[in-house]
């Protein structure tokens, strides 16, 4: 068994040092305060690795296990009322300082997106009778939490250097929660915006001219009917799966003497100079829960009462009630035309923009509306 000696500075907690000071006697010349000797059994890969992607040191802890002291029913009710009162005032007018300057929409502008809940799919028809599937997304309780200007964002570890100072960060959250279930540092993120803490947070890269003031509410009117959007979310989590489900491999014959290998993969590779298992070999493992984006889906219908986006097409990732990031598309062919650019809600839609209240339902021109009786007859005559 190979072994190696590790010199560690400072102290190590007890639980970690299995063979702590195993060969103390050999290291008499070193200072105790500065050096610790630890012998570790040789193993090339640690069994579980915390990769930077799973937990970043700058992320705050979200959930807390801490419970309040015992509250009886009336007290509990009172606490709830206090929380609701506290945020009810801010929700009517969350903006503490004056509104930020509003800029026109230009060709290079990138606006913030919204966080939506996927509700499911429906079937719709075009005016000529062709059916197509729509995915329904609900923009529920969205607020802008923070804006980080490009100069500050450039110092962040997640900043891509090639982007330079083009983008700032816009943090958006959805689904207000009871603040008691979150930790204090997490609740502190929302103090500046003056909104209740959110269940879900995300960040969008925005150009500085499209920055939105923290505390602003977002809803479906951020988009217009006919816009093209990108939807990003996590796919359905299948857990640990075998090769047949995960990669669509053939398996082995079900009979003719096959035992215990009906659903196994065959050989893993060739021999000679191509031997060994190459990196990326398809094998069993965790399947699903990947971040996936569907680009360039058209918004064919909007419901302003329940804040619903009807997006044409299937393939928005995840089961129903998955969180989906919806933002303006990045596809160059599906950008807005010059006349559409003047009517874009910049940086987002405000209620005072509209003189008349918006209609409850808005459709794209070629989608069949169930309220219109004469439509099929017209189509039939033509």
């Amino acid at each position: 068994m190979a072994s190696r000696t590790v010199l560690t500075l400072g102290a190590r907690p007890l639980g970690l040092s299995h063979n702590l000071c195993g060969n103390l006697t050999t290291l008499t010349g070193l200072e105790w305060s500065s050096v610790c000797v630890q012998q570790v059994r040789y193993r090339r890969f640690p069994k579980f690795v915390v990769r930077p992607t799973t937990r970043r040191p700058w992320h705050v802890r979200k959930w807390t296990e801490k419970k309040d002291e015992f509250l009886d029913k009336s007290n509990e009710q009172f606490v709830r009322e206090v929380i609701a009162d506290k945020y009810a005032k801010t929700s009517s007018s969350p903006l503490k300082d004056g509104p930020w300057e509003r800029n026109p929409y230009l060709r290079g502008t990138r606006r913030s997106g919204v966080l939506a809940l996927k509700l499911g799919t429906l079937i719709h028809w075009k005016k000529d009778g062709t059916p197509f599937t729509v995915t329904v997304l609900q923009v529920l309780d969205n607020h802008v939490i923070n804006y980080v200007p490009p100069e500050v964002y450039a110092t962040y570890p997640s900043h891509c250097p090639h982007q330079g100072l083009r983008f700032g960060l816009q943090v958006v959250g959805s689904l207000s929660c009871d603040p008691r279930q979150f930790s204090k540092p997490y609740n502190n993120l929302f103090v500046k915006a003056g909104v209740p803490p959110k269940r879900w947070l995300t960040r969008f890269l925005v150009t500085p001219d499209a920055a939105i003031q923290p505390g602003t509410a977002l809803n479906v009117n951020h988009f217009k009917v006919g816009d093209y959007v990108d939807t990003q979310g996590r796919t359905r989590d299948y857990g640990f799966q075998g090769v047949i489900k995960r990669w669509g491999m053939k398996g082995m014959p079900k009979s003719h003497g096959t035992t215990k290998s009906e659903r196994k993969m065959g050989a893993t590779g060739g021999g000679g100079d191509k031997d060994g298992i190459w990196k990326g070999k398809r094998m069993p493992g965790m399947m699903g829960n990947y971040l996936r984006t569907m680009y360039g889906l058209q918004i064919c219908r909007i419901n302003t009462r329940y804040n619903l986006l009807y997006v044409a097409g299937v393939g928005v990732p995840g089961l129903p009630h998955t969180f989906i990031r919806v933002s303006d598309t990045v596809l160059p062919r599906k950008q807005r035309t010059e006349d559409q650019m003047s009517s874009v809600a910049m940086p987002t839609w405000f209620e005072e923009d509209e003189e008349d209240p918006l209609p409850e339902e808005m459709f794209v021109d070629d989608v069949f509306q169930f309220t219109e009786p004469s439509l099929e007859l017209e189509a039939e005559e033509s």
Partner: protein
Amino acid sequence: MAASIAQICVKNIRSFPLRQIDLVYQQTSCVCAFFSTSSPLSQPKKLKHVINYQRTHAEVARALRKKQNFLHHEMVDKHRASPLQSGTEQVSEKTGEAAPRDYRFVMPEFLPNPDFRYRDKILEKMERQDMLRRRAVIDIPEFYVGSIMAVTVSDPHSPGKTNRFVGICIDRGGRGLQAYFVLRNVVDGLGVEVMYEMYNPTVHSIQVLKLEKRLDEQLYYLRNAPLEHSTFSFDMQPVTLPRDAPVPVNTTKVKLNPKPWEYRWERFNLKGIEPLELTPKMEKGIKAHAKPWEDYDLMLKYRQKVNEDEEKSIMTEVFQENTRIEGERKSSRAVLRRKK
């Protein structure tokens, strides 16, 4: 000195998980010397983020557990009804006159998917709203499998721009906007079946020529029956039932053609066919494929059905809206008559 530190050490160790204690006992002799000069024993300093540190069992289990990337639908409804929520209206439940008891057989397509993963209150509400809007435009009457119906659809290629088909309804299914039914008839000695979507905008009118039920839920066995059972005239006149009469059940028994059949009909427990002459092989097949335990599987029934309270509220809403639509239709007809 060393002994005292060891005692302290053991005291603090009690809060550790059991598996670590024996390990610590082994090491106490040398560890105490190590700890004596380092940071305070009572609270070993928490590690900052390091790339490769050993996780506790709980942490590993949490990481390996399925990550929930979606919310349960009840949690979503809770958020929608929360006092902290703003900007989105809530779905209101209708109260008032309840629907008749067997209304779900009249409008089966309004019942949502019983699988809880695909349930959503607002989505179902919007779908129902669209269906009722469509029902206000065209009259979709009450019909059952076994009824004889006539359907007119728009057809861009035909000279009259419409296409009419008459036949017996042999199947009905789908839920929501995807609801469909299948008509069967014999035209020029050839059996023809057409599937129609009930809410498809190309459908102009749906007419029930003869309202009746059959003994089975699907009549696909008519494909293997003599053609006279599925032959209906295109000029058939509608048969009107007396008002408030129950829907009659047609109890005719069909004699199937000899094999080959499309399916093994003897395994379907059909009531609308004459008793078959079973060969020993057929009996063996029936026995092998029978699932008698499903009659007693309460869990299966529970999973395949929508909750009764929810069903009641949905049907109430549909019933009230439908009666309103029909009332409007009647009054508009009366206005037309008066004008004439």
